[in-house]
């Protein structure tokens, strides 16, 4: 390792933490100091989002990851790392022997994220240097059935949420006659609020997804494909387009791939902002240029998909696993895992957690391990853990007592939550579970396509009930009605959006029923979150600055200048403006 490298991790998250500025600073400082022989590189997100901006270097057989580098650090960093040949000790996050991922990411196992943060995503050579496109080369010499068998052996299941065995999906599709050809679709419409695994993979390692698609397309006999990616991910779109272009130039895409009979034409389709398009049939409608309204299955896409043709739809994370499985063997993949869930799962940790970001753990790891051992526990330790929300709007909230559950499709479904695509939002005591249910219902209501009755109106009425409860206007009868609508909505909706929309309601009702009752009967929000249920009073911390009185929209606050103010509870509309205004923390809420 003669040549020195400085790698700035520049995923969307890195960039928003200032990675562009840091990168530019490196360029200018290196130039100013006339340093040559140092290669400044860009890479994707390594998942350490809590510590952005991350910079990586290698020295003396060791790999260093630095955290929270700002442009002010750059000069000293170069002095230390390059000139003095010493680690920039102030900001080391991890140091480990090169290639020792296990040391860098304890308790994790990186298959999907194997290249993220390591390679330059816009460089096909970088990908190739990490055994990229080796798998497709091997596959092209294999009979298609054997490729399918390999995936079946791996036990890989769809990582989009439902967990349908990928190999079986391919096999079933192959069995459908398709004289007019097939389609292979990558579902990158990661719409779950709280999930960003697919974004990071597409940004940080787009070629692995393309290679996964190539393998799948070859196996099922598809020669047209789309990556359906959210328009809200501009960097991912950019990297995908670049990767497709480069892959074409190298003969990995297009006609007669690597001189074989196999041709695959791949395009991107940008979503236009509709969560429901993550649902297969809606995604198909969207690709066809229609409103993304789901239709009844069967017929499944395997039978009648895009433009009525036999189609496979796999999600990004699923596909990123494929080249690894081919290179290492299905049986190797299946060594990792828990019962019917094999391999690893990527989670996006966010919320009130110390080390938010991406983690990839073997199936079977417990939620507690993910949250505490990897995620570092609560962001603010004074506030106790309350719940973890898994699977976004289709998922549910899991309370403390269930944290020792293993990460496994079946175990999670039993709780009422779902594995989902992997969003994991951690909440502490300050989060109100009724409000959370309301939040998700508001989301699903906005995202409902409006086609079927239970989803269009059921979610609306549930939302209205939850709003009333949050505002202290709910009744116990309405709580029963809420449950009734929720149950019917989950059994009588056309698609998974409506079918799973009640999950946040049902799980919070299941594990936090008392909190609902508290809102309804005692008109109190235990988390002190629901503004309408709070009483605002001014404590003796008040210095009489009059700021709150001036801001109060209903003039409910009065008091002498420099004297303690009081709030007229009759007039108070509980808007919370005073709390936001007070610089002395003098407004108590109860």
């Amino acid at each position: 390792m003669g040549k020195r490298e400085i790698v700035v991790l520049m995923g969307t998250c890195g960039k928003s933490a200032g990675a562009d500025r840091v990168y530019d600073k490196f360029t200018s400082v290196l130039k100013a100091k006339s340093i040559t022989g140092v290669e400044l590189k860009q890479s994707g997100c390594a998942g350490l989002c809590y510590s952005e901006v991350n910079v990586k270097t290698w020295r003396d057989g060791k790999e260093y990851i630095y955290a929270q580098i700002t442009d002010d650090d750059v000069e000293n960093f170069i002095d230390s790392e390059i000139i003095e040949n010493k680690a920039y000790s102030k900001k080391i996050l991890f140091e480990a022997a090169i290639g020792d991922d296990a040391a860098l990411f304890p308790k994790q196992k990186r298959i999907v994220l194997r290249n993220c943060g390591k390679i330059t995503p816009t460089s096909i050579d970088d990908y190739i240097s990490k055994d990229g496109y080796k798998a497709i080369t091997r596959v092209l010499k294999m009979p298609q059935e054997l490729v399918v068998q390999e995936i079946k052996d791996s036990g890989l299941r769809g990582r989009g949420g439902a967990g349908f065995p990928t190999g079986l999906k391919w096999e079933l599709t192959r069995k459908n006659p398709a004289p007019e050809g097939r389609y292979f679709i990558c579902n990158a419409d990661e719409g779950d609020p709280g999930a960003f695994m697919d974004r990071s993979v597409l940004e940080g390692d787009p070629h692995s997804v393309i290679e996964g698609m190539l393998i799948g397309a070859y196996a099922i006999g598809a020669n047209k494909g789309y990556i359906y990616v959210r328009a809200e991910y501009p960097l991912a779109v950019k990297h995908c387009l670049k990767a497709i272009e480069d892959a074409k130039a190298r003969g990995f895409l297009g006609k007669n791939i690597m001189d074989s009979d196999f041709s695959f034409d791949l395009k991107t389709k940008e979503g236009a902002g509709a969560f429901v398009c993550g649902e297969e049939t809606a995604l198909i409608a969207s690709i066809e240029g229609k409103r993304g309204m789901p239709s009844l299955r069967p017929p499944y896409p395997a039978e009648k998909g895009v433009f009525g043709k036999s189609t496979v739809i796999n999600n990004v994370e699923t596909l990123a696993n494929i080249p690894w499985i081919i290179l290492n063997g299905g049986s190797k993949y299946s060594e990792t895992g828990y019962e019917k869930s094999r391999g690893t799962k990527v989670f996006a940790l966010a919320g009130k957690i110390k080390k938010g970001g991406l983690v990839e753990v073997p199936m079977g790891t417990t939620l507690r391990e993910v949250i505490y051992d990897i995620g570092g526990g609560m962001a603010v330790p004074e506030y106790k853990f309350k719940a973890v929300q898994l699977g976004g709007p289709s998922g549910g909230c899991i309370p403390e007592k269930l944290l020792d559950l293993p990460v496994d499709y079946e175990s999670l479904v039993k709780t009422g939550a779902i594995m989902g695509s992997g969003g994991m939002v951690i909440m502490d005591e300050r989060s109100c579970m009724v409000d959370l249910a309301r939040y998700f219902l508001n989301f699903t209501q906005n995202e409902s396509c409006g086609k079927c009755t239970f989803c269009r109106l059921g979610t609306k009425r549930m939302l209205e009930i939850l709003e009333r409860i949050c505002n202290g206007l709910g009744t116990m009868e309405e709580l029963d009605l809420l449950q009734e609508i929720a149950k019917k909505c989950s059994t009588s909706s056309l698609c998974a959006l409506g079918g799973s929309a009640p999950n946040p309601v049902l799980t919070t009702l299941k594990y936090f029923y008392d909190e609902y009752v508290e809102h309804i009967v005692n008109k109190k929000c235990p988390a002190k979150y629901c503004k309408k249920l709070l009483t605002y009073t001014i404590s003796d911390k008040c210095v009489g600055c009059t700021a709150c009185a001036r801001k109060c929209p209903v003039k409910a606050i009065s008091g002498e200048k420099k004297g303690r103010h009081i709030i007229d509870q009759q007039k108070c509309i509980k808007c919370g403006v005073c709390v936001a205004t007070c610089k002395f923390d003098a407004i108590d809420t109860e």
Partner: protein
Amino acid sequence: MKLTINDRPFETDRDITILEACESIGIEIPTLCHDPRLIPFTSCFICVVEVEGAKGSVPACATKVREGMVVRTSTENINDTRRLCMELLLSDHAGDCIAPCRFNCPAGIDIQSYVAQVANRDFKSAIKTIKDRNPLPLVCGRVCPKPCEDACRRGLMEGPVAIDNIKRFVSDEDLKEPFIPDVKPATGKRVAIVGAGPAGLSCAYYLKIEGYDVEIFEKSDRPGGMLLWGIPEYRLPKSLLAKEIEIITSLGVKIHFNKTLGKDFTLKDLKAKYDAVFLAIGAQKSTAMRVKNEDAKGVFGGIDFLYTVAKGSKVDVGNSVVVVGGGNTAIDAARTAVRLGAGKVTIVYRRTRDEMPAENIEIEEAAHEGAIFNFLRAPTEILTRNGKVTGIKCQVMGLGEADSSGRRRPVPIEGEFETIEADTIIAAIGQYVDPSGLETPVDGTNAVTLTKYNTISANVDERTFKTNIEGIFAGGDAVTGPSIAISAIAHGRYGAASIHSWLSGQPVVKDFRSAFNFSLGQKLSDVDKNYIPQASHQEREKSGSLPIKERLDNFNEVDFTYSEEQAVSEAKRCLSCGCLDADECKLRLYAERFKINVNRIRGSIRKQNIDNSSGYLVFDSTKCIKCGKCIRVCSDLKAIGALGFAGRGFETDMLPSMEKRLVETSCVECGSCESVCPSGAIIDKSLVLEKIAQFQTKVKPSICKECSIGCEILTVLYEDKIIRIIPKNRGTLDESMLCKTGRYESLSNIKQSQAFDFSTYERMQLYDASIKDIKEAISSSEVIINWGVDIFNNYAPVSFHLKRHLDKNHDAAQSTYFYFKTDFNIFGFNNYPINRVKAQSETIMDKGLLKVMESGKRVLIFLEETSLSKTELEYFMGIKAKGNIKILNLVRRRNF
């Protein structure tokens, strides 16, 4: 394929849906969004069924049957799902199924209809509509306190429609040439009615119509009961009342006067002689004030006072009169006292003006005529000198908490009293039923049971009006205690219906009120103004009345009847609240079937958005249930695309394209959307009548004669007038989707006599064709017409180059709706295959066909057996008449 449906084996070899499978064996699956001609949309979810092993419930309209499937269509779980589904759909609905005026009328008169009929100047129909439920409209038009107007949605605008004045106009009109209902053949059964008041007369009228022999026993010497004795002449002239009653008696109702129950006859006698008895004895005794000296000279009960005056007896009221009470009788007494020459009339009431039960207008009139009100006074003693009234002592009251009636309870203010001088005191504080004659046993030892209020106990709730004694029914004030005339009239009518059912062994017919009815709010104060039908400003017509000074010394009628122009103009103010689709609405049908409680789920409703721009159609978004049928018909079948979706989620709308007004879109106004709409979101405008309501109509099949296609239609007849044309098989998209011309424009030409009459049609001679026949026919014909879908698609190549044209002009609509295809190319006429869509907007084809027929050329028509039933056209007869035409009937296909 073998499967099980509701535990019955089912076998099919076809690729059908569960819904189709069920239909084929007579199991009806409810659905709102499904139409057999459209690709399943699965939006409403009413059609859910249970399939063993399936996750959740399954929409039957789109799920194909599979080998071994076990289907259940009506489990408790499924019915719960459907019920909740309906409740959700209705939680986003606005409107009134039945007009609130009708709903609030005790007799349930179809007010919206007769008001519309007046707006159409069809007074004869209006009186018929009214008399269907009220045989005394002339009376009601004068004395009714108008609960209908209290509910009128127009009350949220300039003021309610003057329904009562309209009715009064119609019934006055009717006196000129009274409407006499048809009386059914005599049943031979006899019914006795006790009391010739509004309840008794009404009961008699409707029983007579049903063919019963009806006799009324009346204790006084004239008919009318409380209408006659209790309502002063200046409000209801006795001569007019007599005329209206005469119409009833003229049907053959016999009244025995001066016959008092218990004195001149007994119930036992009646029961023995008649098949049924209706007790309508009223509540005629004045309630006493129970104060000291109530028996003094100069003290009257309210109703006794009015009775005495009505009898014509001279009453000297002196100079100052005190009337006690706040109801209509008190006001009547006060205004009567004014007319009898009292110098000062004081109305004493223990509450305030706001709590007075009397009608507002009556209170105002009394004040105009000089009556003085003294509120919050409760009589405690009548002051007398020598046994003659000199005044009244009253306790001063204040208002306390609200009581059960919602009015604030009067409470005495201790120690405060007021004394009012008076020559006459009239205590109009209430009436009660005089039960004399009822106490004697009728049936062995049983007498008619009375309630604790001394009224007759009869089953009002279920509208049987049965008393405890079999065959004896009762209604009116005798059952309810003192109430309003229309309530008694309603009892008479419902009582008659019940007696008829009982005597003919039928169950009692349910009232429309017991069915499911969506309402914007039973009380006007509950109604959201944003959802009432829109109308431009128009003030309520004022009816004239006698100037005050012309009233005080006589009993001339005070209020005047509307002029015809006033009545018509006022009738046009009606907002037509009752949904015109109420009888066809599937939402209402299922709501009724699944016993929906609309109050369980309530929430915000989408904004009202009414598109009135078309001359033929009205779109009302608040009645839309998003089934998408209109859009799918318009786009997928008719290839017009004038309608579309907008937005998503709760805010999803189904609208004219681009949120434009309908007329600004590509809409061709064919009405297909209206035909498939399951609710009242899309309705036809009234083209023949100025105003339309939930009229009683009849439907007659016919054939449209506007063009050569000859769509089968249904003509909707109202009073022998065709008011609407709809396609056959409405609601399921029949092949006969009509066009603007056939459906709407033709209405101005079509007369009933012109409508196609199947009975006169004679099937013409057809030739079964062989290849030889066809070749021959082609060679000898100058014009060849290919008629029908299969003919066109399969034989067109034989008859020249139609196929070529088809390919060139191929589009979605054509492949579905080729009915009539012809090629005039050869003869220089329009030469492209005209599909139905085009035929609707342009009638090129018809002109072309006419031209051919008139040309005298030899014409050959290919026709196939399957389309024959659809092409029974007048033009064919026309063709035959010309004699130059040959028709080949192709019996079997693919013979070539």
